[in-house]
């Protein structure tokens, strides 16, 4: 029993990390549900990485990293919208190029000075064990904002995911709500990168929501599963990281991704068994 509880009781910083991680899991699961529903995985990835040069730039200028992350994400949204509305290339190409470009730009900026090595690791992989009470308050606000936006705009978001034309005809312009959805995802990314890092926030955005999509038969249930699985992944990942001395942020994402593939595998096996039974019945 103590194996499961004492790390958090004995170490206040671990308890803060657990709370921060769960808040990240909740905001990423809610935003991630719409990322999965809309098939915006690649865009979520691009957003998560676009934050990097913003944070690097803010550090170079001595500004708060959060501000830089917001600027980076905003530029990314504008860039993606510009490229996809002006170009006949597929969205994948445009977003992929922006993603690589922003990542490279971030590394170029940081490479100017070797003292930033520690910072770049922090940006990429997060500093979940170093979160302050102020960070917790910030993340709690993000959860409230993301939760409120997805609750108030659930209907247009659902119609948009179902069929953008139906959202337009229902009087909810798809472009406007698409943008609002992107901003919501961006907020989740910006508020989470300090905890789990820009590389791993993408995992938290997709893995729990993806698991939810496999398990659920309705959108609210999907979101519920995502929050539950995301939070449990944070807890399990931190335990593993504590007892086996592994990187905390990465352990959390590894657990979340493993859960997704475990559910995926079980469902695939069950489906193939069912198919085989049906085939056997058909031939007998």
């Amino acid at each position: 029993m103590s194996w499961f509880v004492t790390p958090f009781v004995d170490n206040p910083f671990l308890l803060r990390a657990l709370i921060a991680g769960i808040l990240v899991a909740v905001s990423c699961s809610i935003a991630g549900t719409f990322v999965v529903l809309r098939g915006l995985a690649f865009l979520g990835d691009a957003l998560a990485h676009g934050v990097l040069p913003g944070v690097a730039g803010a550090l170079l200028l001595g500004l708060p990293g959060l501000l830089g992350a917001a600027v980076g994400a905003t530029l990314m949204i504008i860039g993606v919208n510009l490229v996809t509305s002006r170009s006949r290339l597929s969205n994948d190409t445009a977003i992929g190029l922006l993603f690589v470009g922003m990542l490279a730009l971030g590394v170029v900026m940081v490479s100017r000075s070797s003292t930033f090595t520690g910072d770049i690791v922090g940006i990429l992989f997060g500093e979940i064990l170093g979160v302050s009470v102020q960070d917790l308050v910030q993340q709690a606000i993000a959860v409230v904002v993301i939760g409120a936006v997805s609750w108030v705009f659930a209907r247009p978001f659902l119609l948009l995911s179902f069929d953008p034309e139906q959202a337009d005809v229902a009087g909810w312009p798809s472009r406007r709500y698409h943008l609002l959805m992107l901003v919501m995802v961006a907020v989740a990314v910006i508020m989470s990168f300090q905890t789990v890092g820009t590389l791993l926030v993408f995992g938290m955005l997709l893995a729990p929501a993806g698991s939810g999509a496999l398990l659920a038969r309705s959108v609210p249930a999907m979101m519920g599963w995502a929050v539950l699985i995301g939070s449990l992944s944070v807890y399990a990942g931190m335990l593993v990281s504590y007892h086996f001395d592994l990187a905390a942020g990465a352990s959390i994402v590894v657990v979340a991704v493993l859960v997704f593939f475990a559910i995926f595998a079980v469902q695939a096996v069950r489906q193939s068994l069912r198919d085989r039974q049906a085939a056997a019945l058909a031939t007998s």
Partner: protein
Amino acid sequence: MTASTSVIRTEGLAVGFQGKPVVSDISISLRPGESIALVGTNGSGKSTLLKTLVGLLAPISGSIEVLDGVPGSTPRRIGYLGQFHAAGGLLPLQARDVVMMGRYPRRGLLGRITHDDRKIVAKSMQRMGVADLAGQPLRSMSGGQQQRVYIAQVLAREADLLILDEPTAGLDAGSAERYLQVVQEELQRGASVATATHDIGEAMTFDKAILLAGRVVAYGLPRDVLNADRLLEAFGIALRGIPHNGHQDLLSPQDPHGH
């Protein structure tokens, strides 16, 4: 004073994409309780005209008035069934959730879903013969079943104008008949219906027809519009270079989703 007597009124309307007209000089009108069938080959401009009527595409020139306003200004009074459904089939949605979406425009962002809404949803599904599929995930259904659920969604809107783009695509004969009966019911309660179709037989049951082939070939009563000469003219444009025995195939219903 003319505004209240017509649901659709266009004068010299040109429709198309990005400023390039697909069909020009469309002058049609539709009154409450009337139906119009849009007939033509793929690419003849049927979908373009329907999308312009619901406000998804901006008109290129001419005048257009839908439900006493510009297209798209009355979302509560219009129902639309598109030809393609983006990712709908992949979402974790049950059939009844999809039909309930038809009630969203009336309830707005936060208006509560009432007992009446649930009754209307159940009734709409029953009318399209999918009541027993209410709890089924959409993604586990056949294309024809999904199409009937989408039509039920449009019915649940209780709209004054139904715009349907090839609603019978993928439907079996029984379901297509059921759909035609539902259209009659909608007309009887005073709604208007505009439908794109490849099916001449279906189009003959409508009050009006417009034959399109990148231009307006004919417009008026179906029996005048859909006579052999005009059909040959409209479909012959698409048939140029194809042997004559190919005519019959083009006039029978086609499945545009058949990939």
